[in-house]
Structures are given as C-alpha cells and as structure tokens.
C-alpha cells in the first residue's frame, strides 16, 4: 500500500496527531503556571517541581513503583520464559494452555482486580507490597510467554538435534543453544512486563491496602480531589521518562525484529 499522501490527507493526520498530543502538552504547559490552576496562565514558576521533588512521601511511592515494576518483571520473565519453553514442547494440550494463557490478557482490569482481591483475602495474604507484587507478576506472565513463543517457533529444531548429536547435555542445550536464540524475545517480554507494571492502575487499586501505594494509585487519589499543579509537574517528568522508554523500546524492537504493539491496558 505505498502511495502518495494528498495535502488533505496530511492535514487530517496532523489534526489527529495534534488532538492526541494537545492534552499532554496542556498539562506540561500549566505545570509552569504560578496561578495554581489549569486556566489563565499567570506567570512562569518552577515551584510545583520544587515542591514535588521535596515531597518525601511521593519519592517513596515512586521508589515503591519502581521496585514493584523491576521485581515483577524479573519474576514474570523467569516464569514466563520457562513456561513458554514448556508450552513449545507440548503437543496435544498446547492450544488449551494457550487459551488459559490469554485469559488475563483479555480480561478487563476490574475483573482481575476484584478476583485477586478475593483470592488474597481467602489466602490470608495481607494487602500491601506482597499482594501488589504477586498481582503484577501474575498479569505480566502471559505477555512474556507471548513474546518468547514466536522466537521458539522460528528456531530450527535441527539446531537442538545437532547439539544433542554432538554430545551436549540438556543443560548445555538450554544455555548454549535455546537461551541465546530466544534472548531478544525474553528482553522484549521483560520490557513489556515492566511497562505493564508501571502503567497499571485498576488491578493495583483493588489489591493495595492502606499503607502501600503506587504512582498510578496516588495520581488517581490526587486527581479525585481536583486540580493540583503538582500532578502537572509530575506528568511532565513522566512524559519525558516515557519518551526515554519509547526510545529504548524502539531500539529493542528494531534489533529483535519483533513486531511489537504499543499495547497497554
């Protein structure tokens, strides 16, 4: 579908892109407003950023969010990668396992959140850090599996046969043949898990107790109280961080040759 874009087409595309970015830049713009509201720009100030960076409670929440994201992505990647290798070797029950695998991907967040809340309550796990961590691991596993499976599928099975014929042990087949081959898929999975975790609000909102909070939950409770330019300042920082992540993501997807959707919940 290569062709030429007419001027009208370009204007249409520019309009869509303008609409998509306008709210984000609106937030960024007013984060420098000394007036304290998102209407009527009174004067330039960096006060909101200063107050934000001086807020220790918020810094702890940011730290919590990062720790949860890194740990959950790490565990999800390990479990998911071995799961994918297992699924790949399956013959008869492959499709039903894949069906189960995708349940958490298509399920609405409210359902995941509510059902995990019941699960943790019944299991007697106190709501807080561990319940949030477990939930994030749980909803990140299927995406890791989906990222690793295609890499396994495109691997030539004779590679493994060759390794075995040449006397490699099962362990060596795994570490020297399979693992290097699927590494791009594993990295892509890890990265997806990381972004899923950083972005999640609804599931965390259900399973977080009183004492523990992540950034999304904090933004929600701040936003429910109305406009506060601290949120604007925060969104500028997060937007810059997102751009950075997109850059990394882009490089990874270019390198691994995986077609990645920019899909978030």
């Amino acid at each position: 579908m290569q062709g030429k874009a007419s001027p009208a087409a370009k204007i249409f595309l520019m309009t869509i892109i303008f609409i998509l970015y306008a709210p984000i830049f609106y937030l960024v713009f007013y984060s420098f407003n000394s007036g304290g509201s998102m209407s009527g720009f009174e004067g330039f100030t960096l006060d909101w950023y200063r107050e934000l960076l001086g807020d220790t409670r918020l810094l702890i929440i940011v730290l919590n969010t990062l720790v949860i994201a890194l740990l959950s992505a790490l565990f999800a990647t390990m479990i998911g990668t071995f799961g994918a290798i297992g699924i790949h070797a399956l013959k008869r029950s492959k499709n039903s396992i894949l069906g189960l695998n995708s349940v958490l991907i298509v399920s609405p967040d409210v359902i995941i959140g509510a059902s995990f809340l019941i699960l943790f309550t019944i299991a007697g796990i106190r709501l807080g850090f561990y319940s949030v961590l477990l939930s994030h691991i749980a909803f990140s596993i299927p995406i890791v599996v989906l990222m690793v499976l295609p890499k396994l599928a495109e691997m030539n099975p004779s590679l493994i046969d060759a390794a075995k014929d040449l006397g490699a042990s099962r362990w060596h087949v795994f570490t020297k043949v399979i693992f290097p081959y699927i590494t791009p898929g594993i990295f892509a999975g890890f990265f997806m898990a990381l972004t899923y975790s950083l972005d999640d609000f609804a599931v965390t909102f259900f399973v977080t107790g009183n004492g523990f909070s992540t950034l999304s939950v904090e933004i929600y409770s701040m936003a429910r109280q109305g406009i506060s330019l601290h949120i604007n300042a925060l969104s500028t920082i997060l937007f810059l961080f997102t751009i950075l992540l997109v850059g990394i993501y882009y490089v990874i997807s270019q390198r691994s040759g995986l077609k990645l959707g920019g899909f978030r919940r």
Partner: protein
Amino acid sequence: MGNKFMRNVYMVPYMVWVLLFVIAPILLVLYYSFFDIHGNFSFINYERFFTPVYLKLTLSSFWYAFLITFISLLVAYPTAYLLTKTKHKRLWLLLIIVPSWVNLLLKAYAFIGIFGAYGAANNFLEWIGIGSRQLLFTDFSFVFVTVYIFIPFMILPIFNALNSLNPALLDAANDLGASKSTTFRRVIFPLTLDGVKTGCQVVFIPALSLFMITRLIAGNRVITLGTAIEQHFLVTQDWGMGSTIAVFLILIMFLIIWLTGFRKRGA
C-alpha cells in the same frame, strides 16, 4: 521418564500460576456470586441483576461502549488508511502510539482542566460565539475522553491489516475497472476486517469496564459495569453482588471474543 520429568519441572511455576491466578480467581468470583451481603448462600444477587435497575445499567453501559467503539472506528480507519500512504509510515505510527504510553489517569486528568468551567474548551466555545457550557461531568465528556484514550489501540490493528494488504490486489481491481469506492467496499475493507474486529475487541471490553474515567470525568452521571463492580467491592463491600456483575462481564467478554474471533492483542 527422566526427560519427561525434567520437562515438567521447569514448567511447574508456570502451571502453578495458571492454577492460582487464572483458574482459581474465575472460580472464586463464580463462588462469591452465590452469597448475599451477610454471607448466606442464595440466588438473591442473580434475582437483583434481573431487576430494572441493573438491566438498565447493563444496557446503558453497552450503549456507551458501542458508541465509543463506533466513533473510535470512524476516526481510526481513515487515519490508519492514510498512515499506510505516508512515506515514513513506521515513524508516523510511532507518533500515534506514543500518547498511548502516557498514563491513562494523567490524560483523563488533563481533561478535567480542558473541560473545566474556565478551561481551554470553554474558551474556544466563547471565542467562536457559542458561549461556555457545562462540559465536565456530562456523558459527552465521558465519550470524548474515552474515545481519545482508545483511538491508538484501534488504529494499530487496522494499520497492521492495511499494511499487509497485497498491493497487487488493488492493481487488479483497478485493471478490472472497479471504481475507488468499489475497490474499498469489495477488496480493501473485507481484507482488513480482521484488523477491525481486533480493534473493536480491544476497545469494547475496556469501554465496558473502565471505572476510573467515569469517576474522574463523568462524576456519577455515567455508571458502567466496571464502575458498578468497583462500587460493590470497594465502597459498599457487597462482594456477592459485585461478583455477580463480574460473572456477567466475563460472559460478555467471552461472547465478544467469540464474535470477533480470538487474536492476541496487537496481532
């Protein structure tokens, strides 16, 4: 035997995950739906679900989700189509996708400012002479913000479908004398239907269930199935009723996936 055992050993954590976090939660939701607010076994929740209050809620939730999906499709299809015509389509696509990476709550929050009494939208309305309106906490703002948030998710699968279309088919249609609109109706659209279906699936299900946008943007003007579940679980503590609505939402989800054909997200 040894080999089989080894194969199963490293799959153990994954299978435990399937049991604990996929199968058990669904069964637990189903189990809880049979208990009333005092913890007694009953079918009261199902009886309540079929009263006008909940049926109306379900219908209006469906209506909003349908509206949101339809408008997203109307905007996304031409956008995706034009994207495939651009020179650096991957770059353009990336530009469209980046906003979907920004936290959804921040985008919803931006609209509290934009649609506010003295916000940009009202300034614009004043300027073109319509005069300021109450925009926040209306169904309009809810639909607008939700469409805004979901558009990239609708564009991506349609773009992928259009992009993998064989150009020879278009040449063939052209050579055989088909007009542009006929080519679109009989060739392009049918061949990209799968992308459209995937897009509708990834928009419709969240549109039924997102509760934070309704809470932030629509006040209590719009109650979706998701809002109702959140309300029952976290506010009124009536887990039984919440689970019952969740059971129906799960059924609807399977129905939609069955209708649109299962495809992994982003495929």
